[in-house]
């Protein structure tokens, strides 16, 4: 086993003592702490500078935008009123009932032995879902059995309307179907007549 003498042992011990000197260590710790504080100070300084620059930028933008905002607030009332009337017009336009297709339909399927004397249509503008169309048709039916002809016409009208509109109800008004006193000649044949008044009620289609 080799012999280990080392005449540097005093120097090593002194160096170790200096390395562990509490004053030196405290000084180093204080220096480190001070460096950390300085670093923190400059870090915070940079953060605050960035925030300050952002604030200046936002303030500058605000000075430009504020008059526009005021004008926009004033304009908003006007535009809201316009929007409201537009909405009302739009709704009215969309929800109106087109009579022409109905008249065309009735004119098309009315047989020759039925003469329509009057046609009265009423649109009841209640709430949206309760909006109802009432049609009152007065006419004269001619035939060997004129009341049957009138009844056929009523059924036909009901079926035609039911194909186009919901909630269809087609009825004769009370005591409105009566035999007429007059007779007519149709296609060279003398036929009896009956007068009738049909009341048809239905709801318009939601989208026309």
């Amino acid at each position: 086993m080799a012999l280990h003498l080392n005449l540097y042992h005093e120097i090593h011990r002194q160096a170790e003592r200096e390395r562990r000197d509490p004053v030196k260590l405290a000084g180093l710790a204080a220096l480190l702490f001070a460096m950390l504080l300085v670093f923190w100070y400059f870090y915070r300084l940079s953060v605050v500078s960035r925030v300050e620059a952002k604030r200046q930028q936002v303030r500058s933008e605000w000075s430009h935008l504020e008059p526009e905002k005021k004008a926009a607030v004033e304009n908003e009332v006007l535009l809201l009123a316009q929007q409201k009337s537009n909405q009302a017009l739009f709704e009215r336009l969309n929800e109106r009932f087109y009579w022409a297709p109905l008249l065309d339909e009735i004119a098309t399927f009315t047989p020759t032995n039925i003469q329509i004397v009057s046609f009265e249509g009423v649109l009841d503008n209640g709430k949206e879902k309760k909006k109802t169309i009432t049609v009152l048709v007065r006419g004269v039916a001619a035939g060997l059995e004129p009341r049957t002809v009138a009844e056929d016409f009523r059924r036909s009208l009901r079926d035609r309307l039911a194909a186009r509109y919901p909630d269809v109800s087609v009825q004769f008004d009370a005591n409105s179907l009566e035999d007429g006193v007059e007779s007519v000649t149709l296609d060279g044949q003398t036929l009896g007549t009956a007068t009738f008044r049909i009341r048809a009620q239905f709801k318009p289609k939601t989208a026309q």
Partner: protein
Amino acid sequence: MKAVLLQRRNAGRLALTHFAVRELPEEENTLEKLGENLALLLHDLGGKAKAAGIALSHPDALVRIIEQNTIPPELLRDALRINGPLLLSQDCREWVIDCEAIPASAGAPAPAEGDHVRYLVGGLPRPHVQQVFQACLKNKLATNVFQLPPVALLNAFEFAQEQVFKTEAFVLVDIGHRSCTVIVGVKGELILVRSLEYGGAQFAEHLILQGAANFEEVITLLEQEEVLTVENARLSLNELVRSISSSIGFFEAQREEAIPKVFLTGGLARLPAVRNLLVEELRLPCETWDPFAECELTIPRMRVAALTAQLPLLGTAYGVAAEIIKGR
């Protein structure tokens, strides 16, 4: 001045990667000029090391073996420094002293509690240590070991000739420039360290005084076995021979064991004539030993011849370097 650079390899083996030997003029060989010389030596060495150590031979150096009760080395250091006159027969208050218990020889019983333990004590005046440390600092050489040459040489012998170190009695003789060291050990135990104020410089001066023109001529005459020069050399080596003989005598009287061989290192050990004279005078085989016997050599091929020529000089440097890598 000598330097070696070692590298750790697999299985704990070491490899020699660089070495340098620098001869200094007499007036340059001072502690004050150590820094400059160290810079030149490191330049010659090349390479980079993670750790470094230094061993310095100095006439003031103290190497003793003392016997004390078992005591921690830290306490013994202070005791030696304070009670120098009592324990070391000299005032050591201004010295840097270090010590370590000497391991007992193989097969010896472990010391019982209260028994005396043999300690190796080494020291150098504190200003010298400071000067060496400053010289190393100046050259940005981070040395963490400062060893005394006899201890480094013994460690080198242990690492390089482990079989002999652990199983036989041995004598190591290091013939330095101005001093010689005689170390006697047996089976891993250090028995004796003796220093002598005699070295290659005195040998050369003596022969030059006897008529040789210079040291180169001395070497030539010794190689030619010129009778007068050989006899003058024998006369000059007389003091060293006496010292080695008395050391061997001391050991053999104590242990009743024979020393089979003397191992030589140092500048003069390179001269076959000096080795022959020592063999004749001591009547024992005297041979140099290879400090790098257990090392891989990874130096350039053209430097192998230079290394072979310088082998007897590099034992101490190897001891310090190997101790850093293996021992600590």
